[in-house]
């Protein structure tokens, strides 16, 4: 399973969730599949997607917040797993697309092949943490993760894109990304 396939399974399940995206191909691929008002694309500040999402989740307990994170990002800010474990936001779903590589800089290897990130999340205090390796397993797990109380951690093992692919960059200005997301935050939840 590649990143685009994994995203194409998860994205159609979204309703009014606020989704904070890690930088790089995760933002760009998701933007090109479906650009939602409630998508925040973090185009810099690598590592901080889960911290930003936690800041939203703690202050808007009435809204479900999802992080589309990557293994490189999680490894760069592992303290954030401890923060989420310590603060227990029930409205936070942490989805990690793990290709064991820094995808946007040329697929240099990360160390996530040697480190079970879902085990670390569980030890940090996420009541629900699971790894899925196949598209079928993802189809089974994703709806439950988006419906159940968190904080939860879904690690999706994917293959890196070995061949050069053209994936368009985010076309919105950063301040526009923020104001769109804040507009989506103002809406009343549908559930």
């Amino acid at each position, binding site marked *: 399973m590649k990143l685009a396939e994994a995203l194409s399974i998860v994205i159609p399940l979204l309703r009014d969730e606020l989704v904070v995206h890690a930088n790089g191909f995760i933002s760009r691929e998701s933007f090109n599949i479906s650009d939602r008002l409630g998508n925040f694309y973090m185009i810099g*500040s690598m590592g*901080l997607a889960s911290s*930003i999402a936690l*800041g939203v989740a*703690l202050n808007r307990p009435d809204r479900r917040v999802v992080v589309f994170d990557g293994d490189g990002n999680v490894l760069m800010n592992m303290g954030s797993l401890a923060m989420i474990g310590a603060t227990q936001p029930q409205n936070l779903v942490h989805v990690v697309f793990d290709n064991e590589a820094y995808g946007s800089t040329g697929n240099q290897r990360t160390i996530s092949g040697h480190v079970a990130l879902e085990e670390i999340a569980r030890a940090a205090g996420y009541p629900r943490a699971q790894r899925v390796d196949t598209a079928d397993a993802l189809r089974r797990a994703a709806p439950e993760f988006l419906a159940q109380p968190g904080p939860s951690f879904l690690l999706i093992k994917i293959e890196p894109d070995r061949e050069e692919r053209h994936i368009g960059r985010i076309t919105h200005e950063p301040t526009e990304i*923020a104001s769109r997301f804040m507009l989506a*935050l103002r809406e009343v939840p549908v559930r």
Partner: protein
Amino acid sequence: MISGSEFLRVLVASGFDFFTGVPCSLAKSLIATLEERGRYIAETREDAAVGLAAGAYMAGKQPVVIMQNSGLGVCVNALASLSLMYDFPCLLFITWRGYQGKDAPEHLIMGDISPTLLTTLKIPHQVLAKDSVPEAIRWAAETLKHTSKPVALLLPPGVMQ
């Protein structure tokens, strides 16, 4: 010298309502007051605190990030490619270790360059003094509203209890 509770009173009166950070001994009375009132989220790193503040701002809060000036070095990229780029305002309350070259060796270089580093980042800042703390906090709150970007207050030793 101003107490932590009086400092917090002026912060709250100026509209600040979300508090996170990484501690410094110079800010211990403020952090103790925040913790007593259950209003402090202890972060693991200063850059993560800047990220948390960005999320809090989008969710409608006016955040304060407390840190030692050593932490200013940690969060330079978060400030440059998150707060400054997306127009996420926050008050950076930065304690000034290494002030006037008098401190433990690990604080001297960062102490020497702290205001310059803020100037380089184009972050408006003021140095807190005993007799003008409320004015400085109000200046910070006003500046945030106009610029929608971070503002910093530097706290030298001998200003807060």
